[in-house]
């Protein structure tokens, strides 16, 4: 995204998605790499619009006739009415024919294949980039849901802070994410991994490298992980006993990119005493669930899942 003056005005979009991610923190003065959605809400309206327009144009490729898409947006259950309205407006302006909103946890459950239509309690924990959603679902509805603003970004931030505090070295967000993916651990399982990390020494001002161990990352991640465990405990506490029994019998399903953090299932298993299941392909659960729901909407009508 090119920057015009001091204000960020989307004059020309250079890259979107993965391509733009590689530019994060590496842009010259006349460009800006922007994350338009932060903590599960739209942080930059015009840039989000541009990004969506780019995605919509990708849908139809070079075809001459490009119909406006129906769009289903998954929002955190804690999103306020103002945030929801902003999302609606933004997607409409980007050229969507209709916009429906759906709670993220529900989409994740559908995508994971959790039988939410049954009269049985199913617990789902979706750890996304900005937020973690925890919900208990039954009969296509949400019995309990909670959203904590802790996700992959907070994990990265915790790693950056840890390295800065203990080694006096500054590392970027992308490096922190790589550390998390390669040697990140949520539970000590006896396995020890190492990784060489490069950053800028705060004392000397020159680039330095250090060897980071997985046990240190585990330590760094303790704080955000504790908040997630706390949220899960709270959810179990507030779940009605019948549904709680169902959850205890079958377990809780983990989705979202956070579910890929090594040992997270073991941590939750130990902390809650429940069976913990990592869904197949957890990263795409929400998207797949949303897609399934759109298909179901065609055959059963919009109100099937009481989305708003």
């Amino acid at each position: 995204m090119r920057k015009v003056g001091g204000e960020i005005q989307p004059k020309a979009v250079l890259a979107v998605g993965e391509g733009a991610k590689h530019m994060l923190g590496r842009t010259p003065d006349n460009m800006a790499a922007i994350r338009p959605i932060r903590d599960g809400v739209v942080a930059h309206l015009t840039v989000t619009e541009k990004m969506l327009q780019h995605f919509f144009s990708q849908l139809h490729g070079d075809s001459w006739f490009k119909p406006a898409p129906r769009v289903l947006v998954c929002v955190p259950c804690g999103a306020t009415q103002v945030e929801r309205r902003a999302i609606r407006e933004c997607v409409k302006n980007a050229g969507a024919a209709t916009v429906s909103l759906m709670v993220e946890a529900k989409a994740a459950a559908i995508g994971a294949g959790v039988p939410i239509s049954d009269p049985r309690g199913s617990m789902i924990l979706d750890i996304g980039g900005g937020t973690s959603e925890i919900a208990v679902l039954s009969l296509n509805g949400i019995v309990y849901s909670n959203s904590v603003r802790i996700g992959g970004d907070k994990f990265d931030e915790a790693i950056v802070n840890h390295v800065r505090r203990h080694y006096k070295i500054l590392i970027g967000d992308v490096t922190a994410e790589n550390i998390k993916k390669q040697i990140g651990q949520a539970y000590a399982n006896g396995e020890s991994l190492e990784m060489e990390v490069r950053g800028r020494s705060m004392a000397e001002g020159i680039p330095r490298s250090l060897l980071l161990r997985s046990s240190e990352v585990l330590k760094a991640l303790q704080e955000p992980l504790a908040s997630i465990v706390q949220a899960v405990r709270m959810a179990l506490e507030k779940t009605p006993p019948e549904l709680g029994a169902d959850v205890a019998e079958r377990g809780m399903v983990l989705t979202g990119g956070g579910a890929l953090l090594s040992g997270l299932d073991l941590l939750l298993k130990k902390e809650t005493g429940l069976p913990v299941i990592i869904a197949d392909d957890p990263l795409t659960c929400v998207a797949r669930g949303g897609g399934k729901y759109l298909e179901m909407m065609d055959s059963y009508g919009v109100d099937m899942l009481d989305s708003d």
Partner: protein
Amino acid sequence: MSETNFLPTEEVSAGKTLKRHRIERRLSVEKIASELNLTTAVITALEADDYAQLPEPVYTRGYIHAYATLLQLDSKPLLQSHSTATQGTQTLRPVPGLDVALNRFPRKLMLLTATVAIILIGLALAHWMQERTQRSTSQTRPTSLAVPVEPAQPEQLAADTVGTGKLAAWQNLEQRVVRPDATWPGTAAQDAALLQNIDSRSTHVADGQLLLRFTEQCWVEIRDVHGQLLISKLVEAGEQLRIGGQKPLSVLLGNAQGVTVEYAGRPVAIKPFTRNNIARLTVGADDDAP
């Protein structure tokens, strides 16, 4: 190339593999169950590949993955065998209820209904537009075919009698309206000549001529076989209208109860063609009038 490559690959049974490795490691079912926070019944069912006793695939796959990880095995081949065993499970459906039938109004039928409605609306619009354009063109065309003969304008009548050219043109008109009680001021000779002229046309109903007698005010619209508008006007009560044209003539009467119709000297029953007091009929389609 080794010989084993030609052998059919042995199908991996998730339950049997897990059981074998558990026994090799001298672990009890209870121990595994407590490690995985599951019941012994679930572990037994898993080892027996008895998926009917187990919850939905998402859970079962999670159990297999956790069990395999606990035994330090690669879970991928085991999960693959499970996915071939259980395929096509529907996990999302509407909650069954009394109102499900209402929500399940077939979308295809809805689309069809909408399409038909749109087509009908389009046709109606096209018809209306056509009517409108025809009406406007007929209004611009000189209405020389239907001339009501008004009792007024004695000077003009007198002048007409004098100007024989004009009179001839007037006599050549194909339709005319005659008010029976019309009085004609002017000289007796002129009047007599005129009346005779009119009488010769009005009293004798020629073949293929339509005679309309109005007892009430009525809108009349008549077209000939080519769809050309012969007359389109509001006729007052007590008037008569005589129309000739290339048959069959299509007739529209806005107030059917106030009109009696005769064609070729024979009365025409308009009641069968009347709806909401508006008659639409075609006369002279064949020699036997309707």
